[in-house]
């Protein structure tokens, strides 16, 4: 077990290193002079003086050779220092930290809602394949997978904010639960589809396994049967959690734009628009690290729940 986890962790460190280098390559592959871009590249602004450009390069370390910059970048990223924003000169980590609470609370509520609706739906669909619940969930999942999150958000806004006037049109974290209800609902619907699908497939497989058939022969109640099937599905759920992370990150970027949530997704979209490279790449790096760590965590969870997974790999 320890060896399995150690090897997975080592693999994750390798991927993380690749992620760091990839982000640095993006940073230095930027066509044009970042100093000029940031200091005077935007239309309508007075071009910056040579002196100002030199000072800007020195502050952001752009006057050093690429290899030295890669070393410095890896060193500072390891110390969680992502440089300073081109826009206001503040630390990128500080700017990310400010926006994180709004995003995390919306995502937390969304994940909770999605699990509360998706798990029972998946179980109901798995218990009677082809039954009413199964057909309904099939239709719902097709619809949810095909409707982009931002289109879904706009349609919900149209219904609840414009037509019914239950919630404000723009998200407002200070207005309490009502202010963030629609963004959370939209993200919950985005996460609902994969949750219900994975629960349905894994529970269905577990219900067909020899142990489930044996249990039925012993006269197990449907409740016990379902609980056993759920327990057998834990590795699949762990994988599901890992795959939800990139989906929720991308969903947050879009949904925060729809509802004007002052969160991390908005920060990314705004920074891309303003060509604020340190912030863009800091956020890119953070999302990559989050995905890699979530995958590692999922592997560990799956291995704890089902030791056979370890045996297969070491066998």
């Amino acid at each position, binding site marked *: 077990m320890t060896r399995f986890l150690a090897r997975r962790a080592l693999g994750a460190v390798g991927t993380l290193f690749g992620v760091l280098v990839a982000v640095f390559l993006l940073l230095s592959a930027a066509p044009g002079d970042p100093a000029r871009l940031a200091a005077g590249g935007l239309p309508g602004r007075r071009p910056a003086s040579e002196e100002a450009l030199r000072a800007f390069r020195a502050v952001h370390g752009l006057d050093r050779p690429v290899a030295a910059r890669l070393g410095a970048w890896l060193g500072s990223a390891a110390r969680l220092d992502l440089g300073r924003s081109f826009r206001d000169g503040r630390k990128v980590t500080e700017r990310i930290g400010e926006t994180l609470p709004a995003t995390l609370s919306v995502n937390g509520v969304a994940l909770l809602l999605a699990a509360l609706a998706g798990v029972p739906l998946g179980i109901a669909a798995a218990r009677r394949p082809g039954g009413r619940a199964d057909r309904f969930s099939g239709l719902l999942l097709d619809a949810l997978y095909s409707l982009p999150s931002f289109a879904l958000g706009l349609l919900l806004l149209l219904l609840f904010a414009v037509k019914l006037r239950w919630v404000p049109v723009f998200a407002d974290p200070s207005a309490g639960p009502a202010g963030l209800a629609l963004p959370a609902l939209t993200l919950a619907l985005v996460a609902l589809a994969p949750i219900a699908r994975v629960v349905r497939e894994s529970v269905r497989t577990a219900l067909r396994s020899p142990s489930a058939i044996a249990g039925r022969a012993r006269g197990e109640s449907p409740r016990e049967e379902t609980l056993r099937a759920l327990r057998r599905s834990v590795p699949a759920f762990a994988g599901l959690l890992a795959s939800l992370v990139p989906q929720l*990150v991308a969903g947050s970027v879009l949904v925060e734009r729809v509802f004007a949530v002052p969160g991390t997704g908005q920060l990314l979209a705004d920074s891309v628009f303003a060509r604020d490279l340190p912030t863009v790449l800091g956020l890119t790096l953070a999302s990559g690290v989050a995905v890699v760590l979530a995958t590692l965590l999922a592997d560990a969870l799956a291995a704890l729940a089902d030791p056979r997974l370890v045996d297969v790999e070491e066998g």
Partner: protein
Amino acid sequence: MTRHCVRRRLLVLALFPALALLAPVLARNRPADAPLAHQLLTPVPFDPDATDLAARLRPPDGTHLLGTDDLGRDVLSRLLHGARVSVLVGLAAAALAFAAGTLLGAAAGTLGPGVDRAVLVLTGVVQAFPALVLVAAGAALVPPSRFTAALLIALTAWPEAARLVRAEALRLAASPYVEAAWAAGASPGRVVLRHVLPGAVAPALATLPYVVGGAVLLEASLSFLGLGVPPPTASWGRALADARESLTSAWWCVVPPAAALFLLVLAARKAGEALTESR
């Protein structure tokens, strides 16, 4: 899933690029694009970019079948012309991703553990980023256009095809006929392209509609964030971003592009489902 059903679903999916290609015949053109086509008598007599401030936010009626947006542009005309970005960029990106993914996957499966490991590390790194974040970061670096949008989307979409083709290629690479090709002195490129790739491509081909659906969603997301093809060019994602500004007064700006995206992605999903299940 019957053959008949597969064909029907692929035909439904093919309606969308057909519509995109026919847009200049169905709706009036931008004069700058096609001076002659501009004169054509088209069913939708409105230029997609022509603003008419006297007719702002008109609800659907006999003249403007789907109404007008906040600049008085015809929603239907912009929907038809927007397909040229949304559908065609999505298709181009999926084709590029498929080509790159199958090539890398076949090479990884055929050319030994060194190449294999390199490709695996590359796929691991690309898949470590949420696709939208990577595409958005790319959009911060290169000025957006149809070409760069397709390229950026393809850059994030190839690993899935590579994974599928690699698995098949690993199996084929061990087969006697590939060994015979090596023995006959075929070059690595020839073995990969002539002997392994044709047999290994089928599973990736079956999932191609899913890739198209994903690429369309990604392009629409990029356009929605204002990072896609620059204005005034119409696209469904941008139409939704514009519609958000006039949401309280004009539902007809939201529903058509949302429905178009929904139907296209649904058609792609259903075609992918039919293809993968029929195998």
